């Protein structure tokens, strides 16, 4: 290595280090480099030398003028900023609020984008989705597959490296001391650990293959069950008995799954165990398991889809009339792309990510436009200063640098304030979004981003004014007056129009989102969901204990009625094509959703019965009969449905009643055709209705009755209203955020308007004085000054209409049930802006319009 070589690090050192220290320090650095030859270390050492005692003073260096000039420019900038205090405050406030908005969205966004990204081979791990192609053209899409498909995929399709089947969830409780603690786990084939890259801390996966009563638990469970010092105990091979008396042999303890994983489980029971308990899982007709596959590396999903599409149709055994295709979705995309229609993935959470990030950027754009407009307006007032500089020999470059530095400085101040805002409001934002941000880590990310932003934004917004001023001749600068050419006014007007267009679109947008959310919340979904409480039956026998349970519960206070079902009726998931009915065409292959209920169901839910009758406890044979909804009647094509025979799987019965359609799925999709069976064997969900205003009493009664059947369990419940609202979390978040954004953008646009009006009015003081002397009234002046600005709103309104219509109708199309876009929303938004603008312009110009012309004309 050449010792005399001057590396760039040393060059850097020379730019800031005091001359007299240079030789010694360079020597030390070189010696250190010799001992530990690392360029990185050298760079670090040089950077660490940037200390007050070591760096050169700004003044008194060899390059006399350079630092002096820089200092003078800085002083001039700071003075200018101070002199125009009000504008500076407006400018900085707008920009910092906008930056804060962007930062909040950035925080939220990075958190959302983190989901399911933790797998090393995440590209190759895919969820298998099923498409049921019906004869009426409607395609239903599910995340669930038949269990036998796994064996077929493993054996017949070499593109698949491995696969695993997961149950939809398995709740298991273990007694620990006095308490019974319940955990959410899954039944899964042991490949689940390989696919989801879950490492074992203790034990191994092997036992999970051969013992159906093996069990793997997460570290979290181990810590609770065996104590914090579980690692020191010999836990592997020990037996764990759950509250139902089932004994499991502990095969292993695995690492807790990361927070941002949609697949999460506290324990794993071998899927074989579940198959043993429910032999009908082996049937190709039963699609209730989640299937994940890992593709061999180098296989694209599209390629795999074309190979796998017919996997079910070709390999299933038994008699089938329906067509079922499969396709893959990568694990990475599962969280963000969670909506599918007619067999294709149409979006989901990703839409809100796009929506909110575009909004945040628009708000920032609004603030930047303000910033630029104001900076331009302000710099024109400093024409004389620039003129003097030029006369004294400043080059164009000097002038440009000065103004660019000034806007960088202002941006920096705004960014710092924005960070403070974010820091201060972070707890509220966390509550709003229901997320827990790792703020220190995120702030580190953000610091870098902000640095880049400050530079780019500063340079960009400072470009126009600095270019303008540096290009003008010093004589015209010194003569002052209106240095902005007329053509530039057009550009600034265009920017203002653009601002108001965006603001209008935002107002209309948030009003529409608000209306849709209100519509969702107030929609009559065909049943009365207020006062409904859901809890679980657990150890209670659904058939044997129901009547005594019901009698017991109704004896207590606050309960109006109760029923027992097997699904959440506002989110029905079970579907089958194994239904035939009187009058069914041979070619019909149609799917029906179904749920189990009892005769108390319809009255408790207050669902309206349109035809026929409800199930009856007194009629023994009623357990074979069915009640259907209108959608199912339509799908079956029956005009006289009552009394028609229906064969559901192997159970032959009659339609005894038709209920009016109630919303059994989210409002994004149409009401599903539903068959209600009168059965309780597989039911586990208790839904009770409290008497009006007696929720507290009802809860106490439910808990007491619950404890009689489940003495060791913890009672828990949910209100149907909350369950309903929880399906629209994204909407509720967007509704709130869109309000904040709208308020911010309106405020920013108005701030911009205020300052622009103020500037132009100030510049026209003399003109107004002369007009007044010549006889103009205050009203004339007011009209003269405000007309220009108010008239700018007209094109904004015209442009905003189609733009917002286009965006919003697209958004609303995602809902099968939605509001119509209202013309009055536009009118309301436009008049709001118009009135606000008029007030502001009026207030600003009033002072000038009513002032004594002598004041304005005598100065100088």
């Amino acid at each position, binding site marked *: 290595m050449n010792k005399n070589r001057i590396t760039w690090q040393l060059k850097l050192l020379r730019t800031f280090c005091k001359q007299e220290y240079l*030789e010694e320090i*360079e*020597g*030390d650095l*070189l010696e250190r480099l*010799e001992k530990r030859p690392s360029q990185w270390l050298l760079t670090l050492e040089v950077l660490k030398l940037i*200390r007050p005692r*070591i760096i050169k003073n700004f003044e008194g260096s060899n390059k006399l003028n350079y630092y002096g000039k820089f200092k003078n420019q800085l002083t001039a900038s700071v003075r200018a900023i101070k002199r125009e205090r009000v504008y500076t405050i407006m400018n900085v406030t707008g920009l910092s609020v906008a930056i804060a908005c962007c930062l909040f969205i950035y925080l939220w966004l990075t958190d959302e984008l983190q989901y399911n990204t933790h797998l090393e081979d995440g590209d190759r791990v895919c969820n298998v989705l099923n498409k049921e192609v019906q004869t009426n053209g409607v395609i239903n899409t599910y995340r669930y597959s038949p269990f036998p498909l796994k064996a077929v995929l493993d054996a017949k399709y070499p593109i698949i490296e491995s696969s695993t089947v997961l149950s939809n969830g398995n709740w298991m409780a273990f007694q620990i001391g006095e308490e019974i603690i319940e955990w959410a786990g899954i039944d899964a084939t042991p490949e689940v650990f390989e696919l989801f890259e879950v490492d074992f801390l203790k034990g191994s996966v092997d036992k999970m293959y051969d013992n159906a009563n093996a069990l793997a638990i997460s570290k979290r469970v181990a810590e609770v069950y065996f104590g914090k010092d579980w690692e020191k105990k010999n836990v592997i091979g020990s037996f764990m008995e759950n509250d139902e008396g089932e004994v499991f042999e502990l095969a292993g303890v695995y690492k807790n799954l990361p927070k941002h994983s949609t697949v999460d489980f506290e324990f794993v029971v071998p899927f074989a165990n579940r198959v043993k308990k429910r032999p009908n899982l082996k049937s190709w007709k039963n699609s209730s398991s989640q299937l994940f596959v890992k593709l061999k590396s180098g296989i694209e999903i599209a390629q795999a889809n074309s190979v796998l599409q017919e996997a079910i149709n070709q390999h299933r055994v038994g008699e089938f009339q329906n067509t079922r295709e499969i396709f893959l979705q990568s694990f990475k995309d599962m969280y963000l792309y969670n909506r599918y229609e007619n067999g294709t993935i149409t979006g989901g959470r990703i839409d809100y990510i796009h929506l909110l990030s575009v909004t945040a950027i628009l708000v920032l754009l609004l603030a930047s436009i303000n910033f630029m407009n104001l900076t331009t307006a302000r710099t024109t007032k400093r024409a004389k200063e620039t003129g003097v500089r030029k006369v004294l020999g400043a080059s164009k470059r000097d002038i440009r640098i000065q103004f660019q530095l000034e806007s960088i400085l202002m941006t920096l101040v705004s960014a710092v304030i924005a960070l403070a805002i974010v820091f201060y409001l972070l707890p509220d934002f966390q509550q709003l979004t229901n997320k827990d941000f790792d703020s220190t880590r995120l702030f580190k990310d953000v610091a870098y981003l902000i640095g880049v932003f400050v530079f780019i934004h500063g340079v960009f917004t400072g470009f126009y004014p600095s270019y303008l001023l540096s290009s003008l001749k010093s004589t015209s600068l010194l003569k002052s007056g209106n240095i902005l050419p007329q053509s530039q006014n057009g550009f600034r007007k265009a920017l203002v129009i653009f601002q108001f267009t965006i603001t209008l679109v935002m107002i209309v947008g948030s009003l529409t989102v608000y209306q849709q959310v209100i519509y969702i919340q107030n929609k009559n979904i065909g049943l009365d969901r207020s006062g409904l409480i859901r809890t679980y039956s657990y150890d209670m026998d659904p058939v044997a204990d129901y009547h005594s349970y019901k009698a017991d519960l109704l004896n207590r206070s606050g309960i109006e009625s109760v029923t027992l079902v097997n699904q959440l009726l506002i989110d029905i998931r079970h579907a089958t094509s194994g239904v035939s009915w009187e009058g069914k065409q041979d070619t019909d292959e149609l799917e029906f959703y179904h749920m189990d209920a009892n005769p108390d169901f319809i009255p408790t839910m207050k669902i309206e019965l349109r035809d026929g009758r409800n199930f009856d406890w007194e009629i023994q044979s009623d357990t074979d009969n069915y009640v259907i909804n209108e959608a199912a009647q339509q799908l079956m094509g029956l005009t006289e449905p009552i009394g028609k025979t229906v064969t559901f799987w192997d159970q032959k019965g009659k339609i005894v009643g038709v209920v009016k359609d109630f919303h059994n799925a989210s409002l994004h999709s149409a009401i599903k055709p539903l068959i209600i069976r009168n059965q309780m064997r597989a039911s586990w969900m208790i839904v009770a209705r409290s008497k009006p205003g007696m929720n507290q009493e009802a809860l106490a009664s439910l808990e007491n009755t619950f404890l009689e059947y489940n003495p060791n369990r913890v009672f828990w419940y949910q209100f149907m209203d909350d369950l309903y609202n929880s399906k629209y979390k994204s909407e509720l978040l967007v509704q709130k955020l869109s309000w904040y954004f709208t308020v911010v953008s309106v405020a920013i646009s108005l701030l911009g308007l205020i300052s622009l009006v103020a500037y132009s009015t100030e510049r026209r003081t003399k003109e107004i004085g002369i007009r007044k002397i010549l006889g103009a009234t205050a009203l004339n002046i007011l009209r003269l000054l405000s007309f220009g600005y108010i008239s700018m709103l007209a094109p904004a309104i015209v442009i905003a209409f189609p733009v917002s219509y286009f965006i919003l109708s697209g958004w609303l199309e995602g809902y099968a049930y939605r509001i119509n876009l209202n013309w009055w929303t536009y009118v309301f938004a436009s008049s709001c802006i118009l009135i606000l603008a008029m007030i502001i312009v009026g207030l600003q110009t009033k002072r000038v319009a009513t002032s004594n012309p002598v004041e304005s004309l005598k100065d100088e």
Partner: protein
Amino acid sequence: MGKHHLGEFEEIVMLTVALLGNEAYGFAVIEEIETRMNRTVSIGALQTVLKRLEEKNYLISEFGEATTSRGGRRRRYYQLTNTGITILEETQEQRMGLWKAVRKLGFGTAH
């Protein structure tokens, strides 16, 4: 007394300079501290302290002969001044006084 307080790092640097005698130049001090105290010291940190101590008149320095190592750069050797030695002694006395006072209370005698 009382007016001058040595920081912990300042004290270490001064002691190391004393220890190294005629060989006390920047990088040697760093190496000595790093091996003895088992902590990393950046050149920036050391230089700041050296310059400060020199300004306070606790150290003096002069360039050595030109060498062929270090890319031809001369070393700057540091030495304690009498004021420096006094302040070091004062610092030690103060610390010892404190230690003695603490011992009387029984702290530190347990082991």
